[in-house]
């Protein structure tokens, strides 16, 4: 099993969700986050007081997937979240030790 963490542009969330749904991904966790990478921040000006924000709002998606599905999940996120500009985000894949469905106690791939 793999644990996939993707940081994407917030407005791409719906497209990514739809594409993953079509792929058969049954669930995900989404968090609003801030961070920075290569993309430069923005400058806000309030009555002449300038604040440069170097942390930009992004959305973090977390998905647990079987070993077979994981490469296609990564590929789908990459395609659906791309705008072909800096700041599109990144996808990380981690090995997942175990998964348990709380309601039934099922473990492993069947719990996903």
């Amino acid at each position, binding site marked *: 099993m793999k644990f996939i963490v993707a940081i994407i542009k917030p407005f791409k969330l719906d497209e990514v969700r739809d594409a993953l749904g079509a792929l058969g991904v049954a669930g995900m966790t989404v968090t609003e986050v801030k961070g920075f990478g290569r993309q430069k921040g923005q400058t*806000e*000006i*309030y*009555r*002449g*007081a300038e*604040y440069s*924000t170097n942390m930009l709002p992004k959305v973090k998606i977390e998905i647990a997937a079987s070993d077979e599905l994981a490469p296609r999940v990564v590929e789908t996120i990459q395609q659906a979240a791309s705008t072909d500009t800096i700041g599109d985000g990144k996808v990380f894949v981690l090995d997942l030790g175990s998964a348990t469905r709380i309601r039934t106690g099922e473990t492993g791939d069947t719990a996903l």
Partner: protein
Amino acid sequence: MIRKMLSAAGALGGTLGLAGTAFAQAAAAASSAAPAAAASAAPAAAATPALIDLAKLAPAAQAVAQAGMMNKGDNAWMLVSSALVLMMSVPALALFYGGLVRTKNMLSVLMQVFMIISIGSLVWCFWGYSMAFTSNSIPALAPFVGGLSKAFLMNTSATTVAATFSNNVYIPEYTYIIFQMTFAIITPALIVGSLADRVKFWPLMLFMVLWMTLVYFPVAHMVWYWAGPDFYAASKGTDGGYMFNKGALDFAGGTVVHINAGIAGLVGCLFLGKRVGYGKEPMPPHSLTMTMIGASLLWVGWFGFNAGSNLEANGGASLAFFNTFVATAAAALSWALCDQFVHGKPSMLGAASGAVAGLVAVTPASGYAGPMGSIVLGLLVSPLCFLFVTKVKAKFNYDDALDVFGVHCIGGIFGALATGVLDSPKLGGAGFMDYTVFPAVAGKYDMGAQMITQLTGVAITLLWSGIVSAILYYLVDKLFGLRPSADVEREGLDINEHGERAYNY
């Protein structure tokens, strides 16, 4: 009811002279008017205007006489105006300021404004109205502050009357007290913008009570108090406040409200010092949506403030309403253009700030300038205030948190001086009425002399409010401490001073 009246009410020396309703029509026809020796009861016979000593009439006749000099339309307009001006404090000013502070201090600003107007209203009834709007039996003090003859609203009732700007036109005194109360309470509330994020609640309330008493009431008395058009002539132009007697023009409170509060704000932010983290950490407004709502409600409420200051629902009120509308529009535009040229983008905060600057600037001019003059006034005030809040504040490095000085004081000074120019009939202004003769006539406008008078008014207000405010800040700080600890300030005033948070998601 037609407006009439004539003749020497002043000659009666203090008694209320008025033409009874019954012969109002006839009196109007004969408005050249000699004082009538005897009032004829027969309307047809009343070829000369009648003068009646109200106090000597039977109650029923008094009622008839009063109905003749009071107009239900005037009273209705003044009550509506009073409600509009209250709306300028809550919620308008509270939201305008509240949106500009950080989330952790939102409630502190709302609460400060809310309680200043609550406490201030009581102070107004207890001694404020009397100190501002009565004559003083001590001659040396009379030009500067009123007496206590109407303290705790003594000698006022639902049947006593207050003068307007027209001979023999009155409104109920209660209406006048209420209307002026709304001014007396919004002025101290304006000051909190300078002190935002870093002031203790109860000491601030004490400061505001003292400030109203020693700054607002005397300044309001100096600029606005007078005996009214029917009696001012009899006093030979002396029964008025110091600046009023000099002929200072301040229609709705450029000096009394905005310069007064603005300079007190500047002194306050210098006294308190900068906020923890000022210039090092970002302090962006937490909700410009609130600020926009507040600025918009201020714009609407200001119609009561300015057009209501006409005290009568006539063409003068329409003029003030019109000026208030267009000066604000022009100022919002010119601030947005300043933003565009200097920062590359027109900002919502800029437009809202410009609107307020325009409202402030047109306040003293609203009843005197013409609409086109007001548009020019609006276009010019925003670049000036923009310069102060973006450049001058940074250059001199003072932390006027919400720019009370940069917008209200500077805009107020500009408006007060511009009033001296725009009032000129040659520039479409209304000129002024000379009340030292009875009945009042249009005065001869001398722009040079008027500008000197306006400058004097500005200077006196700056000095009086600046110096007395400094003493009061010092006093309250020594007694109770004005500034919370740095830890409290970092964590926020809401949770520490009020035990609440503005937002529980």
